[in-house]
């Protein structure tokens, strides 16, 4: 049945407000090449971490740090481009990109990292590469799953770690790697 769209009618007011939110969120677009770039950044980080941890040398830690730097650079670029294209910031997306916040993506990432590290200790570099690619693809698929859920219900999926929290976590991660460098 068609609503009268009387703005004073409470139900109409709620529907009009929902329409305004839908108008904004339905128009949001991910930057071109978002998923491949995310997958590549994560794959580089996992591969570098596996090599660096297995190498247990200063060079290895430097490689691992470089992998983190590449990943953080890609993540920052993707989030900046998203904000620039759409004129909005969505913390839930930032958490998906930087923290692989979905349960499935986290499991895939940690599993692939563990496999990559073990493979690197055994010098099975083909398996390190497979694990790195699996981590990248898994996290990209996790981000894609979240994006579809967000588009379906933005209010329920919008929240995540703020840029300040993500910045602090990035600094802590870098300091951890630096500590490894010093202690190693």
């Amino acid at each position: 049945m068609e609503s009268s769209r009387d703005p004073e009618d409470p139900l109409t007011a709620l529907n009009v407000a929902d329409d305004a939110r839908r108008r904004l969120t339905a128009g949001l677009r991910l930057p071109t090449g978002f998923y491949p770039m995310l997958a590549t950044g994560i794959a580089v980080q996992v591969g570098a971490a596996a090599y660096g941890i297995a190498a247990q040398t200063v060079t290895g830690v430097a490689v691992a740090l470089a992998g983190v730097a590449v990943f953080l650079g890609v993540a920052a670029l993707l989030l900046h481009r998203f904000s620039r294209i759409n004129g909005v910031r969505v913390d839930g997306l930032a958490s998906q990109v930087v923290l692989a916040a979905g349960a499935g993506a986290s499991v895939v990432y940690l599993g692939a990292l563990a496999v990559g590290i073990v493979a690197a200790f055994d010098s099975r570099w083909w398996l390190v590469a497979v694990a790195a690619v699996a981590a990248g693809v898994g996290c990209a698929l996790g981000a894609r799953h979240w994006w579809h859920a967000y588009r379906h219900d933005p209010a329920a999926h919008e929240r995540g770690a703020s840029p300040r929290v993500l910045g602090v976590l990035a600094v802590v991660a870098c300091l951890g790697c630096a500590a490894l460098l010093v202690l190693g």
Partner: protein
Amino acid sequence: MTGLDPLIHAPTRLQLVTTLSGVSEAEFATLRTALEVSDSVLSKHVSALVDAGYLHSRKGVHAGRRTTWVGLTPVGRRALHEHVAAVRRLIDAVE
């Protein structure tokens, strides 16, 4: 039982806070386009809701020009949920 919130009962303000509930922050012009209102109307409502603690705003840059970014505070988010719940209760009672 919490009732209707007079600060966000007006249709434009309800649209403003509902729209912001779908993002963490929105740039002023993006919000103006989504709400289909003028700069002055949006600015007036944003100022009132910032004063009430429902919204936060900050100066920033978007596409190379200075602009204002606006977001919902936890207080504003809670107020929106309670207001929507109160409206739905009202509708249910009438029906």
